[in-house]
């Protein structure tokens, strides 16, 4: 069904960015425009999701060129839900950054670039054209480069070099894959590709192309042999930026993998084994890394790597139950990871450091805030009935059905290490007495009440969404059930884009 308004969540961020560029250096206006734009974005995303829920898959032919000749935008349940979650995370980060960021960064255009990033994310979720997906990826990485280097501290720039090199390399691999794909099929529309790829004579060439896509998306989503850039760069930018990166950027890679493998390259035996090996090693390496780190944000960076493995494993199994687990975990992960980096930022505001050895006694000073943090951390660990628990059931179930015992072991290891790390974090940061030789520099206490609320509110928003996902799991399971049906049976997607096939 054609709907000309599915790009509204993209345009709203573009509009806010342009208005903020016109209001260059007027930081108060920019903050107001940012919060207003993000709130509107959430409303538009809710509208989009409800329309997709009632009317089925919506499409838009850009510039009125019919598919497969023009660029087509498709909103199915997966993309619409991800757009909604991105918008919510974006709203939370724009609240947080309106106070949690120093003025110098805002003067150099933090807000417009942040909205360009959100625009790129929404565009990447909505596009139905593989080359257009590449263009949105580039929009995302260019804005993330600028966000990462804003402020220009030494560690930040050093992290940015690694981040830049690996991400440009990933884009090059992705582009190579697209080039070969165009050469063997003569199409770029994903629905059209899904039909044409089956008619290709030389199926081993298709396998090689799939490897290019795995390489490109693997670097973006930080899987095992290609993850090094993530822990060495994500701890450097300010927390508001790190929250956007940690919550959303690696997940775009996972989304692209789900999309490409469910539509174009239906995983064969080789691809499954490859992805499964990658997933197991990612979980193991990520959890080992998380154990030894004492800086909160570095620890969280390794946890990102570890949990990416859960989702890649789900894609590797590629059954209905596994995909349900993957997609559910994706939803949960976006909310929780964004929130964790915001929490790290708030801890820094409260204590002036993020090193666990120098922290302590937060629970005694701020019991209410600590309980809020506890809810988020428990959701991450997956204590029933919070949100991290449900997707893991599906992943375990799928792994036992397919007798993937290595993955079962990795899942248990990953979950246990997450529990251990979070318990350690809780004991070190909240329960332990503050070390006597460290001077506490509390930036939070002297702030006026309004700004305190602006710092805590985004964590509350994200926390309530996480609680909603966890406590109202039945609704989410029904949604995820429909999504995995749409993913496994691509005829609905193809019919929505190309019309009825005979």
């Amino acid at each position, binding site marked *: 069904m054609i709907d*000309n308004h599915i790009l509204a969540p993209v345009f709203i961020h573009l509009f806010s960015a342009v208005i903020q560029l016109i209001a260059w250096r007027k930081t108060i206006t920019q903050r107001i425009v940012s919060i207003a734009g993000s709130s509107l974005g959430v409303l538009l995303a809710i509208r989009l999701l409800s329309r997709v829920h009632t009317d089925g898959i919506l499409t*838009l032919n850009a510039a009125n060129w019919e598919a497969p000749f023009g660029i087509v935008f498709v909103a199915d349940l997966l993309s619409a839900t991800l757009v909604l979650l991105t918008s919510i995370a974006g709203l939370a980060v724009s609240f947080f950054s309106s106070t949690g960021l120093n003025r110098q960064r805002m003067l150099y255009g933090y807000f417009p670039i942040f909205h360009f990033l959100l625009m790129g994310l929404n565009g990447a979720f909505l596009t139905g054209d593989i080359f257009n997906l590449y263009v949105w990826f580039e929009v995302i990485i260019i804005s993330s480069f600028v966000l990462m280097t804003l402020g220009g501290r030494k560690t930040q720039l050093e992290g940015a070099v690694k981040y830049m090199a690996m991400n440009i390399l990933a884009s090059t691999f992705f582009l190579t894959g697209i080039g070969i794909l165009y050469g063997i099929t003569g199409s770029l529309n994903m629905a059209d590709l899904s039909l044409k790829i089956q008619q290709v004579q030389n199926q081993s060439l298709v396998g090689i192309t799939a490897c290019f896509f795995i390489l490109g998306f693997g670097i973006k989503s930080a899987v095992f042999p290609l993850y090094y850039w993530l822990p060495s760069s994500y701890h450097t930018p300010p927390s508001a930026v790190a929250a956007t990166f940690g919550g959303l950027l690696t997940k775009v890679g996972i989304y692209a993998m789900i999309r490409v493998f469910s539509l174009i390259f239906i995983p064969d035996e080789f691809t499954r084994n490859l992805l499964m090996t990658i997933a197991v090693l990612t979980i193991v390496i990520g959890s080992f890394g998380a154990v030894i780190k004492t800086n909160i944000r570095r620890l969280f960076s390794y946890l990102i790597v570890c949990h990416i493995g859960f989702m890649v494993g789900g894609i590797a199994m590629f059954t209905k139950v596994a995909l349900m687990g993957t997609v559910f975990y994706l939803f949960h992960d976006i909310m929780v990871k964004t929130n964790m980096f915001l929490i790290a930022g708030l801890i820094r505001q409260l204590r002036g450091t993020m090193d666990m050895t120098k922290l302590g006694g937060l629970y005694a000073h701020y019991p209410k805030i600590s309980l809020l943090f506890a809810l988020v951390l428990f959701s991450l660990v997956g204590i029933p009935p919070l949100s991290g628990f449900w997707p893991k059931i599906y992943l375990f179930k799928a792994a036992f059905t397919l007798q993937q015992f290595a993955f079962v072991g990795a899942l248990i290891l990953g979950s246990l290490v997450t529990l251990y790390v979070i318990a350690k974090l809780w004991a070190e940061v909240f329960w332990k007495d503050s070390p006597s030789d460290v001077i506490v520099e509390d930036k939070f206490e002297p702030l006026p009440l309004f700004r305190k609320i602006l710092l805590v509110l985004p964590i509350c928003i994200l926390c309530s969404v996480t609680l909603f996902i966890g406590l109202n799991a039945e609704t989410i399971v029904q949604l995820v059930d429909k999504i995995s049906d749409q993913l496994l049976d691509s005829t609905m997607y193809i019919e929505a884009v190309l019309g009825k096939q005979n």
Partner: protein
Amino acid sequence: MRSPILQSATKYLLPILLLFSFFLLLRGHYYPGGGFVGGLVASIAFVLHSFSNGTEATMRLLKRKPLSLIPVGLGISVMSVTLPLLFGLPPMTGLWFEQPIPVIGMIGSSLFFDLGVYLVVIGVVLTILFTISLDNNLDEKK
């Protein structure tokens, strides 16, 4: 080093290049050319000026910071992209005037998109190049 040959040549080349860039912009819809190429040629004209007369002289010539061109250009492009939505068409559809206008020819919303791109390209290229060259000048002064 200032070369008098380059300086006097630039004096004539600058308007010619700007005119040529505008020509490229206008013919872009059906023939090779368009906003991006036009913008590059126009920014090359200013870069040439800054080579021969120094970056400060070019900034004086421009009067405003090239950065301020970016929001203007983006605004024009976004308008032309979203305008068809008001007529119930998908975004980016070309809307055309019925009658051709003398000299320029047919005018449609894609021309305004190109105009926006033209301004953005000039803004971006000049900002980047000025940043690099002003950095260099500072280094030399140190």
